[in-house]
Each structure stands twice: as C-alpha cells, then as structure tokens.
C-alpha cells in the first residue's frame, strides 16, 4: 500500500492517500490509542513523573551542551573495552564503514535489530547492492521489509497492518496457508528468523543510549532480537545518532525509567542490554568484533540553533501516539524514516526546510506532543519555527503573495469589513455545499472537503 505514496510530493498529497485507506486508519488509531493510554498508566507508577521528566530534560541538556566531550569519552571507553569506533560525518561514510566490516567477515547475511538510524542512512539498500542480505529481525520490521514497505511507526513499524494482511504475506513466504492468528504467525517468524540469527556473519543494531563514562551501549528490546543480533554473529556494528549519548549509569537509570513507560507503558522493556565491547577472554560466546559508528549526518547543524532541544529526543514514540494528525494519517504520510511530531521537526532540519519543511504543517499545534514528551521538547514551538523557515525558504511565490494580500486586507478596520463582507457573499453563494475543487495550485486542495462557515454580520467586530 505504501507504493501509492509519492515521496516527491508533499505531506498534504500523501495525507490524502492515507485518508482513502479506512482499514489502515482504523488499525493505526486503535493501536496508538492503546499505547497512549498505556503511557499514562505507566507514568503513574513513578513516584513523581513530572519532576522526573524535568530531571530527564536537564540530563539531556547536559549531554548536548557537552556533546563533544561526552562523545570523545565514549570513544575512549569503548575502545578501552576492545571495541572500534568510527565517526561518520554523513550517511555515505557510515555506509562505507559498515560495508568494510561486512567484507572483513565475508558476510553474506546481516541480521538487524530495529534501528531507525539505519533507515536514515539507507543501509539495507547499500548492503543488498554489496551482496549482503539484510534481514530485519524485529517482527514488525520483518513484516514491512517482506512487504517491501518502510516502517510506519518508529516503535511499532507494522502498526498499519491487520493480521489478515500478515497472514497473507507470510503464507506467500511459507508457500502454505497460515492462519489469521497472531500467535501462529509469530511462531512462524521465530523459526524462520532463528536460522538467520545462527547463520549470519554480521549483526547490526542501533543504540538507545551510549553511556560515555562506562564504555557501554544500552539497547532496549522486547522480542530478544537485539540480544541475538549483538550476541550470535561474529561481528556486531552498532550505529548511533551522535546525540544519543548520556554520561553515566545514574543518568541512564532515569532515562530507562521513562523510555518504555512513555512508549507502551511498560516499566522497562523486556530486555535492556548493556554492551561493553566484544567478548572478553574466557567468555564462552559473543562477537569477536564490536564496532560503534557515531553519526552526524546533519545533526550538528541543529546544535546551538533554536531547534537545539529537538536533539534531546530519546525516540520513545509518545508524541506520535497522541498526535491527532498522526492518528488520522499514520506514518507513511510523513517522511518514511521519522514520522509524527518529532519527525515533522527533525526531518526538515536534517534534509533542509526547503525540501521537507512542508511536514511542519502536519500539526494542529495542539501541543499534545509537548505535553507527553518525557524530555520536555517543546515540539509545538519547534513546529512553528520550522513553518517560519519554510515560509521564508520553501513556500511558493503564490503562497507568499497570498499572505501579503491577506495582511494588506486586514490592516485597517475598513478593509477588514470589506474582506468579511466578501466572505459573507461567498458563503451565501456556497450555502451548505462543500466548496468546489478550485483549479488553482494551492487553494484547490485546501477547498476540497471544506465548507465555509457562516460569518456574522458586521465582520464579527460589532460593538
């Protein structure tokens, strides 16, 4: 279904595609509402959730304001644990490094634990082109990979699929009919993916938190695939967005306590792995090589700007789950990597506001996102700032002219009254009908499905 989405078009066009898919919409709505309710219950099990979120925000600000030092320390301690570190300025450098590692172990298969940053750098495609089969092992991610789709939610990638969809997909893979049963379908994936875990030469994961002073990478998963990818293959590569660093275990404890609660409401994910380099002398198993790739890829452009706080993000997904726009249109209407309010902020910042600034309109500015953010990112403010930049750099001449005309029309009481009078006339002409689709590039889409409100006499400013 994602094939109907045209990523060279803008958010509005893609949202219309989503709105035409009632099955997907109800699947998304149901799942994210359940998670949003879980989140509230999860936070209620903390002693003082609002206070802890304040602490978490300050922890992240501390990490970001010392980012150079924290990253340098992480590199030192990870190397001291026997691991390797590579600093990648952009996606191409990161991909090239991973391919080098793959070659060094003659990898034919790479098992992957769900990682949005690998989506960001287009790693799967690069691996395939180099003859290494990338196998996604998070169940939801495996489903969308086999369906040839990008993930639709940063935490629950196949949230848009019904079990009937999955049964159909897996039956094709299995060459025999599988029932519409989540348990049996999961069991099928377990057996299939187990072979890959034991056979792959390379394991690839993201990083939830790099703990600078401890030489430790923290990885949170529920299925156990993260443990598999970091334990079974000969080599492990972890790819970390450079902002995902914390200083020590004391800071980590606070963030772990908020991460899963903010997402599904669990107190902690099933597995929180603390990785400390490759297997040590005497340890019976574990990878011989452990690589850490620290990725910039546009993040440093955000540092020190008015968007700085966006880098606090710990990718819990809470803002997606409460967003009225996300609930209606799902992840695909956004950029295919990062969706929801946080995606609408960081995608334009990473890709350029001219290219992706339209995403900032994927918001009602209701601030529900800011309300739930565990690290208190003022997302709705940042969305407004992205809009400003987009209006400056990305909006068409026609749109700018329209706003100039609008501002002129409202500048004096007399002009305003005339403007409202014209509006009343239009409203009377349209009388309860939907507006026609106007053959104009901007207004055409806006008028689709909208009705004019009845305007009061006197321009609503009678005294």
């Amino acid at each position, binding site marked *: 279904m994602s094939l109907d989405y045209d990523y060279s078009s803008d958010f509005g066009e893609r949202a219309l595609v989503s709105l035409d898919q009632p099955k997907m919409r109800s699947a998304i709505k149901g799942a994210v509402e359940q998670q949003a309710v879980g989140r509230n219950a999860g936070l209620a099990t903390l*002693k003082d959730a609002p206070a802890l979120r304040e602490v978490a925000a300050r922890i992240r600000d501390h990490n970001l304001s010392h980012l150079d030092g924290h990253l340098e320390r992480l590199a030192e301690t990870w190397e001291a644990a026997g691991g390797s570190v590579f600093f990648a300025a952009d996606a191409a450098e990161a991909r090239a490094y991973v391919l080098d590692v793959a070659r060094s172990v003659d990898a034919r298969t790479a098992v992957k634990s769900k990682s949005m940053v690998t989506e960001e750098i287009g790693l799967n495609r690069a691996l395939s082109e180099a003859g290494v089969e990338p196998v996604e092992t998070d169940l939801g991610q495996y489903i969308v990979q086999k369906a040839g789709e990008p993930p639709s939610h940063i935490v629950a990638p196949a949230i848009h699929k019904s079990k009937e969809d*999955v049964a159909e997909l897996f039956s094709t893979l299995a060459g025999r009919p599988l029932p519409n049963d989540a348990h049996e379908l999961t069991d099928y994936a377990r057996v299939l993916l187990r072979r890959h875990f034991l056979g792959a030469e390379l394991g690839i994961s993201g990083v939830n938190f790099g703990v600078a002073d401890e030489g430790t990478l923290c990885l949170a998963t529920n299925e156990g695939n993260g443990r598999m990818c970091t334990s079974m293959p000969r080599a492990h590569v972890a790819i970390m967005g450079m902002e995902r660093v914390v200083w020590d275990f004391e800071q980590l404890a606070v963030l772990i306590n908020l991460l899963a609660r903010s997402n599904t409401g669990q107190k902690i994910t099933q597995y929180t792995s603390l990785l400390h380099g490759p297997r040590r002398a005497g340890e019976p*198993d*574990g990878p011989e090589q452990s690589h850490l790739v620290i990725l910039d890829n546009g993040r440093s452009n955000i540092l020190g700007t008015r968007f700085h706080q966006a880098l606090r993000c710990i990718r819990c997904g809470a803002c997606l789950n409460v967003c009225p726009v996300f609930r209606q249109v799902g992840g695909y209407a956004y950029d295919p990597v990062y969706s929801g309010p946080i995606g609408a902020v960081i995608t334009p910042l990473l890709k350029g506001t001219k290219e992706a600034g339209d995403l900032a309109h994927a918001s009602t500015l209701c601030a529900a996102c800011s309300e739930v953010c565990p690290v208190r990112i003022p997302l709705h403010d940042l969305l407004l700032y992205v809009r400003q930049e987009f209006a400056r750099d990305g909006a068409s001449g026609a749109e700018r002219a329209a706003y100039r005309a609008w501002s002129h029309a409202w500048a004096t009481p007399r002009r305003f009254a005339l403007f409202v009078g014209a509006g009343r006339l239009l409203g009377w002409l349209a009388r309860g009908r939907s507006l026609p689709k106007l053959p104009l590039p901007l207004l055409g889409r806006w008028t689709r499905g909208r009705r004019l409100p009845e305007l009061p006499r006197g321009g609503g400013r009678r005294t």
Partner: protein
Amino acid sequence: MTGRAEFLERVRARLEGVPKTTVEIPSDWAVEVDDPLRRFEAELVAVGGRFHLAREAEVGDVVAEILEPFESPRVVITREPGVPEAVSSSVQGAGGEVLWWPEAGRDGAAAADVGITEALWGAAETGTILLSSAPPSGRAPSLLPRVHVAFLARDRIVPTVADLLDRVAAMETRPSNIVLATGPSKTADIENILVRGVHAPAEVHVVVTQP
C-alpha cells in the same frame, strides 16, 4: 573520510555560545519498595514470568515441577556458582538429558529445550533479573532455549533498576554483555496483540533460593 578530530571540532564549534549546563539528580526519585521479595514476585508474574521460592533442599522438586510438561527434555545447565548442585540430578531424574555449558557450545544450547542459569541480581520494582556474560556464563543458555530457568539468591534482590545499575557500575571487571531481563520475550507487532516468546525464551522461571 572526515575523521574523529574534525568531527568533534565541528561539534565543538557549533556549541560555542551554548551554555554548559550541569544536572543534579535528586537521590530520592526512585520508587520505594517495602517488601522486595513479594514485590519481585508480583511484578514478575505481572509480566508473564513464573516465580518459585525454594530452600536448598527443595530445589530438586522445583526443577522437576518445571520439567513436568516435557518428555525427555534436553537441558543446558551452566557451570555457574549460583546454579545449585541438585539441579543436574533432578533433570536426569525427570528423564532429561543434561548438556553442560560451556562445553555443549552454541549448538548444544540451540538444541536445548530448557536453559538453566544463575541470575546475579534481581530488581523488585520490575521483576527484573541481571544476567552476566562473565565466564563461565556466556549468553546462549539464557537466550536460545524456549524455556529459561534462572536461580537468584534471595539476598540479591535490590529495590530498583537504578540499584541494579549501581551494582554494574561497581563491578571490578565488566563482562561484555549484561542483560536486564524482565519476564519472557514478547511482541505486540501484529495488531497490538500480545504474543510471548518471539526470539528469546517464551517461558521464564525465576527460582529464588534461600538458605
């Protein structure tokens, strides 16, 4: 290639003008736990794990009870100090085959129905156990079999996850892998329906031992 120095220099330059902040983490943010053992049990059961409490003499019976549903199970047992001696004879008594770890190797662990290991610590707040890869433990026995049985000493249950991390920070030599495991493996990726046992164990028993 850009290189580390240049990468960090760019970050440093971008941060010019950003005030360096500090953070004081209050010492009392974590939840308080009154009765760690009872809380551990309740939380473990809530996430789908099974709880057992056994004195040394009762360990054999508990193992036999866990193995009851199996017909001649293959059981990988680690040579960790926390795994009681009575375990292997109990497995054999239940008609099971004992595979000793690490000698059995990864293939042995992959073929086993049940993995029996120690847990170094437990956290009451969440029903979490701490698994270490330090020799002779490794990773496979608690990961590959469908059933995982972990032995945890009663006096090793600390109140919270934050306390577990304190214990890790205090370790003299750090293993390459520590897992904070909370109940069985699970997913809700298909229609948000909870399914236990995706890639890691579907059934988790924690046997808390007391003198």
